[in-house]
Each structure stands twice: as C-alpha cells, then as structure tokens.
C-alpha cells in the first residue's frame, strides 16, 4: 500500500461529465439566476438605488419640465435684459441670465443636451466597441492581432485634440459631436468585450454549441453577446458620465454646442463670467452636472459590484 501508484493519479471524486445538451441548459439557467442574484444585490445597495432614482427623476424633469416653464431657453425677456434673481411673477423661477433669458429653461435644455449626448455617443461607442471586440476575440489570429494593434495605436494618440479639430473643421454640429465622442470612447469598450469573449470562447457551453453545429454568427449572438452583456452594462453606465463630462468640457471651451442652444458646460462657462454678481448662474448648472455624474458613477460601481461574483 505504501507503494501506492505515484503516477497516473487522477483527482479524487470526479463527477461524471454530463452531456453537452445538459450543459447548454445549465448555462441558460445559470445565466438567469445570475441576473436575479445581481438584481437583488443591486437593490440592497442604497447608494446605487438612490442614484438610479435621482437620474430617472432628473432626466424626466429635463425632458418634460420645459412644457411647464413659461419661457423657452432661447427667448430673451426684453423687459429684463440682465441677470435677475428668481421671480415668480415674471415666471423666471430661477431668475434670468445676463441676457435676460430664463435660467431654469436653459438648465433644462442643457440637461437634455447632456443626457442626449451621453446616451447617443455611448451608443455609438457601444456598437463599434462590441462589434470590434467580439469579432477580434472570437475570430482570433490575424484579425484579432490587427484590430488590437489598431486599438493600441489609437490609444497612443491624444484623441481629445482630434475631437477639437473635428469640431472646428466641420462647425460645431451636434450630431458630429456625439459621433466624434463615440468614436473616441469605443476603444476601451472593444478591449473589455474582447477580453470577455476570449474567456467565454473556451467555456464548455460554447464548445457544446459549436459541436452541435451552430454557425459562428449564431454562436456570437446566442452565447457570447448575452454573457458579455453584464460587463458591457457596467461599462456603459461608467462611459455615459465620461461622455457627458467631455461634452461639457468642449462646450465650456466654446467648442461644443452653439448658441442659442446650450448645455451644462456652456452654462457653466457663461456662469463663470457672471459669478461675481450672480454666483447662481455658475453654481446651479454645476450642481446639476456634478449630481448627474455622481449618480452615474455610483450606479456603475453598484452594478459592477452586483454583477461581479468575485466581490461577493
């Protein structure tokens, strides 16, 4: 007995290997309960839940609110023509800016621009990032090498400068802005998706799907995309505030949205000119912007904690 076999030793109590079909189903079930667990954990996270509610309320106010504000964002109140404190009689609930435009209406309009840019630019980044990342990860080989080398090169370029050049060259066009921002933000997304795809590619249920004769496209759609989704949702939630920040930065420098349209960044720039007399014109849009960024970040962190099984 003491000369028990030293080689050919296999691990002790192995479970028998279930068939591929069962594994496929197991993966689905696992997927569902993973989402349920994640949702429960997210609900338990107070900061994240409060952030989500604040964001929904803020977005709602920005898009629906203007209907209830007596002034539009571009309308100049010719009776005033200067910055004034809040006045309910004239309907300037938060006062006016230095040109006599309604501050509340402008902040709401600025919020619309921020939310829209945040969502549209992130969608652009998402589509490109997922397409490139999943393709690179799944195809591997030359394609992968080429795409990732390209991403590396793009990383080494200060793209902010190019966004600004683009904005200058093609005029400060709203659509161009979110396209340009989206084109910058997809890089990280593609890396994350590629990494996820690589780890998933070799998991059993993908092997099983491949063995049972699924086409590459259907494997990507049915198995890879849903599994990558968790990470992507987290990253999207964290990209939106970055994009909003970027837009505000451009607008602050006068390179973003053009008057009379406005955005929180542009309002902050205007406010900074007036702050000596009316700090309100600086502080109110700044608070809105910071709150939004804060909430997106907390929500993103919360989602990450909820979806990352490592951090139980």
């Amino acid at each position: 007995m003491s000369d028990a076999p030293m080689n050919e030793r296999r691990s002790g109590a192995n479970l028998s290997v279930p068939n591929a079909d069962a594994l496929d189903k197991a993966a689905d079930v696992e997927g569902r309960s993973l989402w349920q667990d994640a949702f429960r954990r997210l609900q338990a996270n107070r900061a994240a839940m409060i952030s989500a509610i604040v964001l929904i309320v803020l977005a709602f106010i920005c898009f629906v609110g203007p209907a209830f504000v007596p002034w539009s964002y571009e309308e100049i109140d010719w009776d005033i023509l200067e910055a004034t404190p809040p006045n309910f009689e004239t309907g300037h609930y938060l006062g006016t800016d230095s040109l006599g435009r309604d501050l509340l209406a402008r902040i709401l309009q600025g919020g619309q621009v921020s939310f829209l840019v945040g969502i549209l630019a992130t969608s652009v980044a998402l589509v490109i990032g997922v397409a490139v990342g999943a393709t690179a990860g799944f195809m591997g080989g030359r394609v992968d090498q080429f795409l990732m080398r390209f991403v590396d090169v793009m990383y080494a370029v200060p793209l902010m400068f190019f966004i600004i050049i683009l904005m200058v060259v093609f005029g400060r066009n709203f659509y161009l802005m979110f396209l340009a921002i989206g084109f910058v933000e997809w890089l990280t997304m593609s890396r994350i998706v590629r990494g996820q795809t690589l780890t998933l590619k070799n998991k059993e249920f993908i092997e099983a799907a491949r063995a049972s004769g699924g086409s590459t496209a259907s494997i990507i759609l049915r198995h890879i995309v849903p599994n990558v989704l968790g990470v992507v949702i987290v990253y999207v939630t964290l990209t939106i505030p970055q994009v909003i920040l970027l837009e505000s930065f451009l607008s602050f420098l006068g390179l973003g949205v053009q008057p009379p349209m406005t955005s929180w960044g542009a309002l902050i720039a205007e406010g900074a000119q007036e702050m000596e007399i009316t700090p309100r014109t600086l502080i109110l849009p700044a608070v809105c912007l910071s709150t939004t960024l804060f909430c997106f970040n907390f929500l993103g962190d919360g989602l990450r904690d909820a979806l990352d099984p490592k951090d139980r």
Partner: protein
Amino acid sequence: MWAYFTRRLIIAIPTLWVVITVAFFLMRLAPGGPFDQEAPLPPEIMANLKAAYGLDQPLWWQYFNYLGNLLQGDFGPSFKYKDFSVTELIGQGFPVSIQNGAAALFIAILFGIPLGTMAALRQNTGADHAAMTVAMTGIVVPNFVVGPLLALIFGIYLRDTMFALPVAGWNNGAFPNRILPVICLALPFIAYIARITRASLIETLRTNYVRTARAKGLPFRMVILRHAFKSAMIPVVTYLGPATVFLLTGSMVIETIFGLPGIGRYFVQGALNRDYTLVMGVTILAASMVIFINLLVDMTYAWLDPKVRYE
C-alpha cells in the same frame, strides 16, 4: 530589453506620422480660412497673405513643405500671432504647461497614493467610504467648475484677507500665481490615483504571495511595503499614460480660466481662430508627449515586474 525599446521607438514614428498627416489634411479640409474676418479683406491683400504663408501652393506641396520644415524643428509661422513662429509660441508655452502639470502630478501622487492605501487597509469601514466619496466628488466636479469656484473664493470673497490669491495671469511664474491652477489641476487627479491605488492594493492583498508573506510571520507593515506595494503600483503607473492626456486637456481648461500663457490655451485659441499651424504644432507636441510618457511607463514596468525585464 533595449531591442524592445528600439522596436517601440520605431513604432512611434509611424504613429506620429499618422497623427501629423491626419491633422494636416483635416485642418485644410475646413471651409473658411484663418484670414476670414467679419469684414472681408480686399482680394489683393488676401492673395498676398496667402502667398506669404504658402497657402496659394498646391496642397501636396504645402504638406511636404510642412513635413520638411518639421524635421528641422520648424512648426511654421502662426497665422494669428503674426509676429511669432509656432516654434516660439510653443517654446514659451510649453514650460508653463509642463511646470504646472509636473507640480499637479507630484501633488497627486503625494496625496493620492497614501489616501488610496489607507482606504484599502480599512476596506469597507466608514473611513474608507468617506475617503472614496470624497474621491468621487473630486472626479465628478470637473476642473472647469472647481477653477471658477476657487477664483470666486480666493480672488473675490477673500480678496481683502491674507488668503487672497491671484486668479489671473502667470506673472513670470510667481509662486502665488501658480497655486490655484495647480490645485485645480491636481484635485481630480488625486481622486483618480487614490481610487486606482485602493482598488489595486485590495486586489494585491488577496494574492497568494501576500498570504505567503503573512504566513511567514512578517509584521503587517512589512507585508504591505515589501510584498504588496510594488505590484499594487503597476496600475498606478499604467495610469500615467492616460494621466498625461488628462493633464494636457486639463491645461486647456485651467490656462483658459486663469489666463496662463501655456500650450493648452494656445491650442484652444488656435482652434477658435483657425490658426492651423498653431493647432498642428500643439497636437504634434501632445502626441509626442503621450508616446514618450508611454515609453517611460514601459520602462517603469520593467522595474516593477521582473517578468517584463526578460521578455
């Protein structure tokens, strides 16, 4: 290792060339030129101006001419600052920006790493949550908000007290003039570094080799400093690449707010005025800096992780 860096340098050249080429043709695609003004100039003056700057030549000629001059360190004349060449402007502006950036980087490391370390060691306690909420605030309150606010507080509200600080101008780099811009640039940076340090140290503390070090009976301080810290710094070093970009864009904001004669402000002014050569010059400089810093980061890796050293 040297072969590796040579290879990196060789890759850097085409990257830079792509940057130059794309920027050059993008700028030239722009409708309207640098001499467009509200009242149009008489045609013959316009033609003279264009000839003086070589803009009447074919595009390809301008391109190769530009490349040729670039190789000799000549970025061409500025279109708007008529008496200066871009090289001169950059020569004046670059030191200002680099000094502010380096000071901000230094402050950020000095405060960010200890803050993140402390948070990691007290993970999930009140102190940790407080530190990370403050850090998050530093990130979500952008420096174009902090800048005006600081200017409001120190330049206006505290104007007549001992805390008053200059809020505009460079004054040849006088110390008080640097304080607010550097703080403004450093704040979000401290926050990022603290967050990265915290996350990475927590990760490192979970590694098997930290467990081994503890199993050896080493005091906790020694476990952290000798076994955990070096690896935990890898993501922080990695962040220095993006941080350079961050400092460059940050310099656009603070130099605009505080009226500093740095390359960030030149770039913004250049972009608003369609000062092609100035914008190109700063872009090329920025790209070279990012490439250079990434190279430095790689060298630091080799020191932090012996595996890299031998590959």
